[in-house]
């Protein structure tokens, strides 16, 4: 299996392959030579310079790597080439199994506007918006003026919040249009945009679907993904507080219909918007594994990557009535970013890393202590999950896990995530996609002044120790250079003194 991705998702796929006894090939760019996925795979092939458009997005280089290593299957992960029908087709033409649906299904869902049209025709409710991507900013502006603000500008080829902007007023349109176009081009190599009406107080709820080659299509329930910053999900959970059994069945049926309408095979996610009255609308279908798939794994006990591989091997999916859901799972995305500095990304060396363990905790990480988080890629370094019998216990558990999550050398958002999990509105379950923006101030907690004195004591004692050790080292060096003039002898002695480390 060649894993055409990097970071935590490449590591995730390699883990299941290892459990199944399948050999793995990693691919890597210049910046990723030392990355965890390269270290873990059985083979690794360099595919180009650091920018993803010169490496992870170049299908021909990935196919060449597969050819060189004799890989007979490619797992695309998420992002990068995972939803590119042309790459999917090229794999099949090269006689390589692409772990995902047919290229035709990806094409049908890939251009978000044609997917909307198709779903609408199949009787699935869709959010009002443009039928086609706009070729021209003026037309798009005129359309937005007509349907009324706020509107969402979205990448036609997109997903994952890249190239997505909420526009509140006509005056802001031009700037947001340009930004969304650029982000979309850099993330997907395609800058076509379309417009959707923005629903008030929407919740983002998605349904995991799975289908085999015989057309058996099931759903594995929902994931609630309304906690978002800049249209990036940061906390996901299942079950959703607004979804009861009846609504889950209804949404599940719609999601299965949507998958069937495009002859879907493998793992897919149907994203829905749920309004304040619990009406739901089709948003898009992601024709790949989703970042937050472990939430579903924890409530169902299934391994979605294993299921993807089994389906690709021609095995049937389990029957809908065999899907069991138990307890509550919740995920928080740990990012290399500094909430105290307007969430500026913080690439750089991780000098120290300690991750939590204990009951019901899962850490899907792509980094290690000593790794330099590159500035060329997404800032997500890990996903931390907790499972517990109830929602409250799962939240408490995740909060405890985040308190035990220590990343040094770069700033991370773990404290922000803890404040979020503690927020009374989040705890109540009554939140929508506006949650992070509405309560932004509450989530940036100030340091507790009562602890400042202890912090000062700790910093001063550490500084004292460091200064003291340095002074001793200096004294030792001076003493030795007097005793023996030879550099080699001195180096040898220094090594012996430090316990053998060079």
């Amino acid at each position: 299996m060649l894993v055409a991705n990097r970071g935590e998702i490449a590591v995730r796929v390699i883990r299941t392959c290892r459990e199944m006894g399948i050999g793995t090939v990693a691919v890597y760019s210049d910046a990723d030579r030392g990355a965890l996925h390269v270290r873990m795979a059985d083979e690794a092939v360099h595919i180009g310079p650091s920018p993803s458009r010169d490496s992870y997005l170049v299908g021909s280089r990935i196919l060449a790597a597969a050819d060189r290593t004799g890989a007979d299957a490619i797992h695309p992960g998420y992002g990068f080439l995972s939803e590119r029908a042309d790459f999917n087709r090229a794999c099949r033409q090269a006689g390589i199994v692409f772990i995902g649906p047919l290229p035709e299904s990806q094409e049908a869902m890939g251009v978000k506007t044609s997917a909307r049209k198709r779903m609408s025709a199949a009787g699935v409710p869709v959010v009002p918006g443009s039928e086609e991507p706009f070729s021209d900013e003026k037309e798009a502006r005129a359309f937005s003026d007509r349907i009324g603000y706020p509107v969402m500008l979205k990448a036609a080829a997109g997903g994952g919040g890249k190239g997505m902007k909420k526009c509140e007023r006509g005056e802001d349109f031009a700037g947001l249009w340009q930004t969304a176009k650029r982000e979309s081009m850099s993330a997907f190599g395609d800058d076509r945009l379309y417009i959707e009406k923005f629903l008030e107080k929407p919740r983002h709820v998605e349904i995991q679907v799975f289908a085999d080659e015989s057309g058996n299509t099931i759903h594995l329930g929902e994931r609630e993904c309304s906690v978002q910053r800049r249209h990036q999900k940061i906390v996901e959970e299942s079950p959703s507080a607004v979804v009861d059994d009846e609504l889950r069945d209804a949404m599940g049926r719609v999601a299965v219909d949507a998958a069937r309408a495009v002859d879907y095979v493998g793992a897919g996610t149907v994203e829905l918007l749920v309004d304040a009255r619990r009406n739901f609308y089709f948003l898009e279908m992601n024709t790949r594994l989703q970042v937050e798939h472990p939430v579903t794994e924890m409530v169902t006990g299934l391994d979605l990557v294993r299921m993807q591989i089994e389906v690709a091997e021609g095995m049937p999916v389990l029957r809908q009535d065999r899907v069991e859901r138990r307890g509550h799972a919740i995920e928080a995305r740990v990012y290399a970013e500094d909430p105290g500095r307007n969430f500026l990304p913080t690439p750089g060396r991780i000098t120290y890393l300690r991750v939590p363990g204990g009951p019901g905790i899962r850490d899907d990480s792509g980094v290690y202590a000593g790794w330099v988080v590159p500035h060329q890629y997404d800032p997500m370094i890990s996903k931390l999950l907790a499972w517990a019998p109830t929602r409250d216990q799962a939240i408490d558990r995740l909060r405890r896990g985040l308190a035990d999550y220590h990343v040094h050398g770069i700033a991370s958002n773990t404290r922000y995530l803890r404040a979020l999990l503690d927020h009374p509105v989040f705890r109540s379950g009554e939140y929508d996609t506006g949650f992070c923006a509405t309560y932004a101030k509450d989530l940036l907690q100030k340091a507790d002044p009562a602890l400042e004195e202890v912090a000062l004591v700790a910093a001063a004692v550490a500084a004292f120790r460091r200064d003291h050790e340095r002074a001793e080292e200096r004294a030792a060096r001076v003493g030795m250079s007097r005793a023996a003039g030879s550099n080699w002898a001195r180096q040898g002695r220094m090594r012996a003194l430090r316990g053998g480390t060079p």
Partner: protein
Amino acid sequence: MTAYVALLDSGKREAAVEVRPLGPGLYEVTVGGRTRRVDAFQHDSGTVSLIVDSASYSVQLDERGTEVRVHLSDSLFPLEILDERRLRMRRSPRRFRVDGRQILTAPLPGRVVRILRRVGDPVREGEGVVVLEAMMMENDMRSPKDGKVVELFVEEGQAVEGGARLASVE
């Protein structure tokens, strides 16, 4: 005895701390006129267990030169800790000020995707001057003061290193 000065709130506040070693891992520390007996045990590179009088704390220290981020319970204290010599060096050549010309630098490597203000344009404190794309997100680089853009050191599309000069505002 060693005397330190801690700079808090990006240098807006100072606190004096004195450390007197008593024995292995044992110290007497004076902060704000109060002296406490401190037992410090280093667990691993980042974690220190502190027993201050009898209260027990697990403290995470993320040190980078004189800058240290102290994680304690749910609080984070970013501070700088300097001894007298370093404090003198810091104070003599330049002090923190926002009057006069300010240089806007890239806090991280990335690519300049858009110039929002041209030379001569007025700009208010906190308004974006250039947009830097890093880690697949666009980030506004904001002016540190009210004034006018007097120089631009970069062009749209240019890749920059962390610390690179972007613009100056006066």
